[in-house]
């Protein structure tokens, strides 16, 4: 294997993101306070350029770096989801970080680095790139969580997130080691894998050739899934999620909710399709993997949505709601791993796109309403928002409706697609019923926010900060609102596009 121009061309999106991260960090060294205003533009430019270069790779379906990365439709759509989350978060951040006094180049540099990690994850085709992508993304996000380092909540959230994240990385890595061992001990002996390239031993599709009942494979897969479940906040490994989401600055919360999920779900989906393809019969690893994941998905939907009911802090409430959404996406992954048909996997892609946009929107609104001293977090602080700031309240209502899955929004379409596939696959009917019940429960707490904004009087002395000069956040919210409605009203084109993306994965 030699490193050629071909590899670098396929790797261009990641290089662009990392390059603009470096530019943002170095520009800050030479910039006076006033020139820091250029940093969001640099980051936004880098993200958009990366998205365009991803789009330009559409239809290539090639491998780079001797098979370590694979650029196909799945990689492009998930990479675009990560870029969309990054672009929206940069827009929402600009004024927020200035008023919080953390508008360093490092802030944007870390954001772009985390985005690069997520794009690597979307393309990861062997276990080594999976590990490196997850670490590049996670380490940057740990730092971002604690970026407001004089706020106790922020540093505590970073501490908790770091400990749980590094702990889960240990499990993920042990799982990877055992999966590697399963390939080495079985594949090597049979001579299936006597290929000239040693990296073939780590490829995701090498796992498909390991005999189903190899103990190392089963143990490795279990540990791998534990690690991945930590990262997406799936029950029973979700305990860090509310703390990290509440303590992190609002634009960072929106960013990590979207980008981390896009990256890790890309890996889960690719593993489901490439490493453990279901040949339509009950093969042991495929059915154990989807059986275990199905229970995790059901528990995640129920626990996330039920715990959210009792929350009075908006960021914490949205954290539990994000756990619930992880559960819904997991339902899609489970159904996709049991199906030959591209529709369930395409539904997962659609849902991740929708989720990224509506989450960035709802946390963007919290960023817009933040002021010098802190954020509006308590539900009661949102009382009467509609009378004072009607546009903000309307946007929030739209995002809440979308998260709850009320038509005609992106969230409704996403849930509809995933649950339709679950119902079509008779085996997972119970998952669809659980999910729909959990969604109905979730409507209660989303509507609670809307009721507070529209039907309550403002608390005494509550002044909603005017955000008219926060052009970045306003533009970001406008884009997120338009995308939420557009994906809900005319999803056909995006669905076709997601289906084509899935068909390009062999």
């Amino acid at each position, binding site marked *: 294997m030699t490193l050629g121009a071909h590899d670098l061309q396929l790797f261009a999106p990641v290089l662009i993101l990392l390059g603009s991260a470096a530019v943002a960090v170095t520009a800050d060294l030479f910039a006076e306070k006033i020139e820091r205003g250029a940093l969001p533009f640099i980051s936004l430019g880098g993200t958009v350029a990366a998205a365009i270069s991803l789009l330009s790779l559409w239809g290539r379906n090639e491998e780079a770096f001797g098979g370590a990365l694979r650029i196909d439709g799945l990689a492009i759509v998930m990479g675009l989801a990560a870029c969309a989350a990054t672009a929206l978060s940069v827009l929402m951040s600009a004024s927020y970080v200035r008023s919080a006094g953390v508008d360093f180049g490092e802030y944007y540099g870390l954001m772009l680095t985390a985005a690069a990690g997520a794009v690597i994850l979307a393309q990861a085709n062997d276990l080594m790139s999976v590990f490196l992508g997850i670490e590049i993304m996670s380490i940057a996000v740990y730092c971002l969580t*604690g970026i407001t380092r004089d706020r106790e909540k922020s*540093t505590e959230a970073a501490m908790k997130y770091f*400990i749980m994240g590094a702990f889960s990385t*240990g499990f993920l890595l042990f799982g990877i080691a055992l999966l*590697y061992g399963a390939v080495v001990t079985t594949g090597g002996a049979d001579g299936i894998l006597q290929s000239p390239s040693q990296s073939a031993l780590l490829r995701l599709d090498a796992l498909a050739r390991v005999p189903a009942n190899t103990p190392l494979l089963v143990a490795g897969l279990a540990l791998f899934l534990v690690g991945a479940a930590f990262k997406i906040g799936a029950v029973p490994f979700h305990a860090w999620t509310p703390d990290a989401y509440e303590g992190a600055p609002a634009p960072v919360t929106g960013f990590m909710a979207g980008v981390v999920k896009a990256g890790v779900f890309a890996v889960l989906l690719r593993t489901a399709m490439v490493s453990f393809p279901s040949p339509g019969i009950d093969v042991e690893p495929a059915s154990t993997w989807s059986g275990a994941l199905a229970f995790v998905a059901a528990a995640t939907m129920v626990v996330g949505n039920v715990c959210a009911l009792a929350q009075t802090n908006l960021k914490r409430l949205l954290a539990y709601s994000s756990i619930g959404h992880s559960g819904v996406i997991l339902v899609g992954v489970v159904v996709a791993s049991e199906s030959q048909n591209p529709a369930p996997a395409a539904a997962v892609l659609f849902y991740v796109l929708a989720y990224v946009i509506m989450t960035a929107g709802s946390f963007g609104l919290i960023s817009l309403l933040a002021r010098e001293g802190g954020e509006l977090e308590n539900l009661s602080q949102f009382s009467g928002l509609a009378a004072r700031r009607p546009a903000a309240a309307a946007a929030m209502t739209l995002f809440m409706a979308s998260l709850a899955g009320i038509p005609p929004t992106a969230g409704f379409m996403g849930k509809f697609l995933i649950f339709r596939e679950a119902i079509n696959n008779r085996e997972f009917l119970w998952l669809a019923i659980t999910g729909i019940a959990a969604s109905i429960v979730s409507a209660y707490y989303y509507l609670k926010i809307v009721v507070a904004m529209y039907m309550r009087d403002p608390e005494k002395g509550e002044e909603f900060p005017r955000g008219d000069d926060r052009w970045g956040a306003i533009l970001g919210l406008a884009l997120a609102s338009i995308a939420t409605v557009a994906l809900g009203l005319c999803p056909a084109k995006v669905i076709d596009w997601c289906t084509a993306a899935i068909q390009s994965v062999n």
Partner: protein
Amino acid sequence: MLTLHNCLLLSALLFATGVFGVIARRNVLIVLMSIELMLNGVNVAFVSFAKFYPGSSLAPAGHVFVLLTMAVAAAEAAVGLAIVIAWFRNRKTTDTDDMRSLRW
């Protein structure tokens, strides 16, 4: 005896010691060290799989993975200690039981 079985046993023991440390110890610094121990347990597993590769040649992918793991562990430790310092400046403690400003 240096067999694959024994090497994996050592790896699992190291990993389990690390897991126990993360769960049972209350000092953040010891928790960080335990996480390093977990990663080192994994490294032993990688190296032993590479050594006992039954094919015709070595399986250096395992060795390479260990080098990457060590680099990543170093990056993780740097960030982890920085976060500990930031938290310590706010709270003046390294006891995980004192992480109480975020709950429920």
